[in-house]
């Protein structure tokens, strides 16, 4: 009689190939471990350098704050208060774009004909606009008209208005008497180049 019985267990795939698979698995695990270790080391090194940069920045910031505090304390002394006020005033004028008087004078002078001279120049601000009041004296009426025409053509002035006109009396020396003209115009402001020139 042939016996075909057996109580031995049929080894599962897990048991049959566990030993064969364990080697490659261990190798792959080792490679992964090395890669992860290298990555962790690189990250740690970057973290340390970032920490050092941050600490350096913090140190520089603290030094600058210290320097600022010292400068403020130095500049806060009474002997520097006058200069500070002046500088503050100048900065305020610059911030408010105030008129350059030499520039205005030069522009008006450019408009004067040969026979006309500038007697008085007044500057007044009214809100956002600025106005100039001019008193000029010329030999004859034609010269004054030429000046008014030049003023109206100038891009720096607008809304020209003649306020009054008068004749000067002849002097005792016999010199010829001139014609005086009072006029007003709106000054359109200084060009950017002029402000920089200030």
């Amino acid at each position, binding site marked *: *009689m*042939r*016996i075909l*019985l*057996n*109580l*031995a267990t049929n080894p*599962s795939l897990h048991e049959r190939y566990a030993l064969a698979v364990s080697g490659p698995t261990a190798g792959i695990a080792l490679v992964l471990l090395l890669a992860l270790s290298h990555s962790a080391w690189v990250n740690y090194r970057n973290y340390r350098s970032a920490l050092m940069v941050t600490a350096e920045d913090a140190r520089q910031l603290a030094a600058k704050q210290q320097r600022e505090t010292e400068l403020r304390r130095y500049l806060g002394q009474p002997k520097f208060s006058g200069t500070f006020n002046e500088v503050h005033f100048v900065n305020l004028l610059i911030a408010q774009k105030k008129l350059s008087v030499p520039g205005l004078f030069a522009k008006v002078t450019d408009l004067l004909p040969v026979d006309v001279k500038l007697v008085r120049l007044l500057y007044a601000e009214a809100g956002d606009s600025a106005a100039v009041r001019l008193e000029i004296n010329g030999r004859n009426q034609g010269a004054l008209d030429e000046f008014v025409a030049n003023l109206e053509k100038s891009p720096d002035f607008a809304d020209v208005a003649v306020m009054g006109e008068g004749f000067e009396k002849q002097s005792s020396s016999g010199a010829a008497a001139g014609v005086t003209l009072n006029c007003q115009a709106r000054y359109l402001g200084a060009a950017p180049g002029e402000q920089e020139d200030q």
Partner: protein
Amino acid sequence: MNWKDVKKRLTTTGTKRTAPFTLPSVLLEIQPDFVAGTRLAAVKHQHEVRSIYVAPLPPLALTPHAGQPNVANPDAVREAAVEVMSALGNGSDRFGLLLSDASARVGVLSFETLPEDHREAEALVRWKLGENLPFPAEEARIHYQMLVAQPGHVEILAVAGRDTVLGQYESLLGPSRGTPALVLPSTMALLPLVPERNDAGQLLIHLCCRWMTAVVILGSRVCFWRTREVRPDPADTVADVATEAARVLAGSRDHLRVELAGIWLCARPTAPPRLPEELARGTGCEVKDLEPPLELSSLLPGEEKLDFARYGAVAAGLARNTAVSHQPSAISVQ
């Protein structure tokens, strides 16, 4: 693809599947009194015994039982098993385990029909075998082979062992040796030595270390199997064996309708005095010794031939098992 089956194969949990029969090159027989090892070699498509070694066990180091732990002295049993394996020069070859008949249960089961579905058949066999198991049937490793498969009548020879009990033997040699390729009760290995006889039944009596197994064989099929313990004193042993043989003889005649024409006796290592005579007198049958074929031991030196004659019957039976032409079907059971 059945992913559950794949998952089950890849994991170690759950019930274990018994393997198909295979004959490893090394056989290790562990009995209550000794550990015997045999190395087989294939010569011209047949197996021969290349070497045999026997180591004794101290008393009570091993107490066979189907439902309880068997190994009472693991160190002593392991030491003997390692000694035997070393003597055989077994390196990494897979090995087979032959156990005392009392460590497993064998039964002949009859059914009107057996489901073709493997799992359903397994459940039915497990349920029916469970009635005679001294432990929960779910804990059993089961393997059965078909004896008769006729319409309306199916007969199987089933063997069952408790997983924890078998595991105790399997783990004796340590994890480095792996699991055995073959596990069987020792009497099962004797069946191929019994010559087939179709005109009448035969009784095989295997006496080994205070345990005897009686097997009734008709033609090429087992009709009856019983294992019982006998008293250790030789005179008592003879009486117990003779009584049991007479009881089986009567039972076969009355219940199996099988007339026994002869008795094959295999008593290892040696038969008690007057056992064959008492058997013949008690049963009225001719008693023959079931001895291992001498041609299988042609490669052995003189001393080992003596050990082979005393202990080598089971190894000879398995060596002869592969040469038998008749091939009934066997079912592995999870």
